[in-house]
């Protein structure tokens, strides 16, 4: 079902003229209300008057994590503090978290975006939906929650961490939909199968996001749980989940172009690329009030398709993600940068910057092993000291990245040979296959 046909099915001309009007407005707003943006635009030699529509997008400077870090926490807020009602955050490369701040209207628009996604997945006010994302700073829990309430569905705010209870309530409350990470849903499927409960559930639909997943995973979910599974995309900096979602034709994720202006750039030359090109996805917030980002580099590599979809929607479709232009990893739905691991290791006295992260998927669970070289300055003849060191590294990593990593002490020459996307990472999962 199409939640907002007037918007979701606009003609290309209508979309572009709406985007142009909104772009001009938001550029004026940040220029006059955000000192940091004003200086950036001045440095780039561009004034609000130079931006007359979407065709001028490439005149504007990009926004990156470095900008968020430099202005943390509220330096990019475009409204007075009293108008802000919410903060969300996810981990940054080093330094400060990536933060997003919202006005009441931002929360409403975000909720509508999520409601459009849920509706695209066939979820209605008659559904009972479990939210299996973490509630808190992470946008997943509250974002999906507000969207599902906006839609009018009956929401069960499960959060994360208790699969047994999630399954009990799925059966008892006859939940018909679930929002969670794809790997977690497969984990739930495993438990349901193990306990012979598959025919006790009433689940019809899953809307999964927060990490990339493959068609094979969709096939597994759909055949094992007898459901339909949909992919939802988003990022904290832009608003959270609900930026884009896939429809029943699974031909890419429809991005809500009336709120988010997508473009593709060449991550090496930073050139804006014509429609249909492959490169890095860049998004401009067209309607956000609290902290609108201009040309935010998502670092996600993909392409956009603009032809009308069989579902009737005209909103551009983000094609399969083929990777990242930075070294961010998504492990159990958590964004992890090797630099965070490195920074955590450096807080443990004596540990060298020689480390390797081995990411794998065992069954349906992501695993992270951090291999730390035992150099002379940390080696002792006493095993208890080495064990203490492992534990300390484990605890520091837990604090820094929020994941329980397996720490493995290795011989110093063991880490010289590597392949993978960075010299400190071996990712054995096939997420972008």
């Amino acid at each position, binding site marked *: 079902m199409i939640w907002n046909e007037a918007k979701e099915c606009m003609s290309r001309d209508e979309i572009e003229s709406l985007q142009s009007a909104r772009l001009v407005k938001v550029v004026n707003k940040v220029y006059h209300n955000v000192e940091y943006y004003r200086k950036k635009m001045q440095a780039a030699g561009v004034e609000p008057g130079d931006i007359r529509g979407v065709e001028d997008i490439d005149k504007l400077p990009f926004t990156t994590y470095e900008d968020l870090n430099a202005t943390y926490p509220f330096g990019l807020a475009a409204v007075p503090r009293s108008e802000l009602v919410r903060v969300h955050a996810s981990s940054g490369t080093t330094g400060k978290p990536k933060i997003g701040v919202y006005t009441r209207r931002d929360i409403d628009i975000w909720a509508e975006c999520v409601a459009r996604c849920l509706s695209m997945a066939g979820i209605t006010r008659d559904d009972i939906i479990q939210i299996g994302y973490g509630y808190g700073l992470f946008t997943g829990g509250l974002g999906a929650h507000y969207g599902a309430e906006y839609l009018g569905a009956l929401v069960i705010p499960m959060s994360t961490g208790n699969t047994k209870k999630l399954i009990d309530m799925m059966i008892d409350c006859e939940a018909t939909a679930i929002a969670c990470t794809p790997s977690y849903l497969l984990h739930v499927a495993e438990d349901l199968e193990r306990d012979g409960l598959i025919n006790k559930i009433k689940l019809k639909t899953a809307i999964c996001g927060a990490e990339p997943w493959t068609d094979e995973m969709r096939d597994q979910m759909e055949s094992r749980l007898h459901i339909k599974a949909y992919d939802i995309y988003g990022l904290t900096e832009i608003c959270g989940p609900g930026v884009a979602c896939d429809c029943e034709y699974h031909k890419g994720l429809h991005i809500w172009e009336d709120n988010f202006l997508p473009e593709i750039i060449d991550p090496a030359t930073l050139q804006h690329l014509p429609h249909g090109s492959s490169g890095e996805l860049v998004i401009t917030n067209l309607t956000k009030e609290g902290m609108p980002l201009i040309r935010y580099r998502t670092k996600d590599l993909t392409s956009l398709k603009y032809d009308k979809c069989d579902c009737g929607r005209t909103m551009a479709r983000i094609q399969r993600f083929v990777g990242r232009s930075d070294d961010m990893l998504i492990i159990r739905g958590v964004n992890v940068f090797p630099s965070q691991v490195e920074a955590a290791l450096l807080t443990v006295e004596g540990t060298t910057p020689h480390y390797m992260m081995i990411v794998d998927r065992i069954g349906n669970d992501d695993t992270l092993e951090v291999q730390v070289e*035992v150099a*002379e300055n940390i080696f002792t*003849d*006493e095993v208890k000291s080495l064990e203490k060191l492992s534990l300390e590294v484990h605890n520091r990593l837990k604090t820094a990245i929020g994941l329980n990593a397996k720490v493995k002490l*290795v*011989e110093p020459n*063991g880490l010289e040979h590597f392949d993978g996307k960075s010299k400190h990472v071996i990712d054995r999962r096939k997420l972008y296959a």
Partner: protein
Amino acid sequence: MFIKQLSVFLENKEGRLDEVLKILSSGGIDILSVSLADTSEYGVLRMIAKEPDRARTLLKDAGFTARIDEVIAVVVPDAVGSLQKVIYKLHEADINISYIYGLSIDGKGAPIAIRASEPERAAEILKRENVKTLTTEDLDNL
């Protein structure tokens, strides 16, 4: 009383122990005793060898992490309860023992290596008790 002990960090991978021993034997290092402390993922190989410093350099050059520590070498008489007597003296003085292992050196009594929490004080206590000890020279003369 103190002898030098060579320790090497070993991953639990096939052939690592052999690799260490090969390096030492081709370097002409005479190993007098070995003890391996193992965990599920790695081990610490401890050795009493002649020319320990040279042995360490050989291993280091081959990319291994190795170190030298001093351990106490005592000769426990061949009599029931004599090991306990030695240990008791240290326990009584609140000295912890990290590990202990037998030295395969011929002669009267059973030589052992002890890694104690306060090596100097432990050594004094044992000296006071007239426990027979070994020195680096004793080992060199073997």
